[in-house]
């Protein structure tokens, strides 16, 4: 019996399709602009918040202060104090559901849409960026790019088992088009951008 796979392929081949060439990609001149200003403005417009910091100590201080309010913090950025993702790599979703804050390293930040590429290698556990109540992403200024094409062309997007562009906290407007920040996932997104001159995390 002919398989469904063969049936579908045969049906496509029977369509007498005209050969269409793959168009060459041309994105015009690369815009020179203040990427940091543009990124933080875009991020604010989609419900996130951006802070420029001189070094990792400032982020440490912020987390320490947050720690007094939120006891359950999972930190996947090894340069920061309280790095503890190793304990949660194999944890199941139910265990992680009470995570208050998750801190992760982003590898590319896009000025045009506020999205940050976060990959499996840095997350440790795929559930965490979605189950946590508040998400913190740490990037360095050199990670900023102009647009999506830059992100795909210049960076190793889509080579890990899993990766995600995160643009703001989770949100919905499914009830009468009223925007509600914090749908099923994180209620807030905080992005720390470490200035180029200082140490990379």
């Amino acid at each position, binding site marked *: 019996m002919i398989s*469904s796979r063969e*049936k*579908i*392929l045969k*049906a*496509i*081949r029977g*369509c007498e*399709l*005209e*050969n*269409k060439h*793959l*168009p060459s*990609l*041309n*994105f*015009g001149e690369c815009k020179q602009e203040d990427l940091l200003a543009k990124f933080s403005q*875009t991020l604010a*417009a*989609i419900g996130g918040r951006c802070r420029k910091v001189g070094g990792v100590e400032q982020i440490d201080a912020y987390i320490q202060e947050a720690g007094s309010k939120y006891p359950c913090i999972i930190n996947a950025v090894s340069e920061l104090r309280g790095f503890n993702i190793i304990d949660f790599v194999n944890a199941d*979703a139910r265990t992680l*559901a009470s995570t208050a804050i998750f801190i992760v390293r982003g590898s590319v930040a896009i000025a*045009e*849409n*506020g*999205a940050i590429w976060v990959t499996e290698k840095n997350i440790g556990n*795929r*559930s965490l960026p*979605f*189950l946590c109540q508040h998400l913190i992403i740490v990037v360095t200024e050199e990670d900023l790019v102009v*647009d*999506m094409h830059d*992100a*795909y062309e210049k960076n190793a997007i*889509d*080579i*890990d*088992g*899993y*990766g*995600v*562009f*995160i*643009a*703001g906290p*989770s*949100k*919905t407007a*499914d*009830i*009468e*088009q*009223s925007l*509600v920040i*914090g*749908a*099923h*996932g*994180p209620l807030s997104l905080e992005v720390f951008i470490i200035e180029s001159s200082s140490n990379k995390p």
Partner: protein
Amino acid sequence: MEHKIKDHSNAAARFLKDEERATWHDETLWFVRSKRDKAAQQLPEWESLREMASGIKAHTLSHLDKYLLAFEAKAKANGVHVHWATDAEEHNRIVYSILAKHKAKNVVKSKSMLTEECGLNHHLESQGISVVDTDLGEYIVQLRKEQPSHIVLPAIHLKKEDVSNTFHECLQTEKNNFDPAYLTNSARIVLREKFLEADAAITGVNFAVAETGSIVICTNEGNADLGVHSAPLHIACMGIEKLIPKAKHLGIFLRLLARSATGQPITSYSSHFRRPRKGQEMHIVLVDNGRTQQLGRKDFKDSLKCIRCGACLNTCPVYRRSGGHSYHNSVAGPIGAILAPNLDMRKNADLPFASTLCGSCTNVCPVKINIHEQLWSWRQILMKEWYGSPAKKASMKAMAFVLSRPRMYKLSGKIGRKIMQWLPGLVNNRLNPWHKNREMPQAPRQSFNEWYEKNKR
């Protein structure tokens, strides 16, 4: 069959009975369309992005067999199980058999118009499997036992009072609390528990990349990720037209998709699934269900370029004032009206007529599908195949008779003008379909021809 053929206009008439709500629906969708315009106008390269997206899709469709095989090989190498389904029934059977093998009883689903198209929920529920739609809009319509009325905004036909009543009844929320934040948070609490207890997650697919074998899923709520990362089993269901050749092409489509849909620069999450996580099983079901047939229809194959952004729905004057349910098809609006007749010409013969052919759909389409021309082409076929309504056929014949005889045309114009001046009651009444919801215009005293005869030198 007459009642079937008239379905859209009858359903639209019912929708329009609540004038206030119809106006609200119209304005809400126009607001979304305006946000799309603003987002598009911020990118000087917008038109070239549309051009490239359309070209990439055209190329992929013209080599679909090659790309499907490349995708399958890559996905398998990534440790993903790949299945092929010729139709809805086979798709449902495959999904059920995977779930049965895993003894999965509780399934969370993130929005997938394909599984709506295939009637998957009903199939699984009849076999004792519980399916929860986790997109907030879809969850709302599921609780109300309705269908989504829009491909991106499933509950756009509902007001917050409706949602509040449904939630009060099903989730025991406070009566008469209409606050969208309160209602959203109530659903959040219930759904987060559903994610945690799920045995399997079913998702749709926005884009599938042949080069890498990965699939990309876009959500604002994070529901696809919450489901997939919690459950031991992930089943992704996709139409075979979702393929694109390379990962770098995603840059173009992701820039277009959310801007066209809601005016956002990008959705909150654009997740790239390539390999299952450790200990997880991942399946992809490739579904035809009429797509190869549409690919073989020269005038309609470009409809397969669609990336399901919903822009053509938001801009359509007919959709906005008739509501998604009046289209009696899983995909409503102009794009639905060119996809549906391919699946069932008789049942969906009314849909290509649910349009003014104004062309606004074509103008906003991010992949440049000639939607209004395809609507017109379907009309030609449907009338030829005798699927049109007898009244429409008779009036078209009468019109052709008059228009092809200049003297008859002049005479009937004169009679028409006199009637409208002297006996307006003859045209301003219920029997005249053009009088519905509007006054007839004031008739001019003379025709252009008469004026020209008098004034020419």
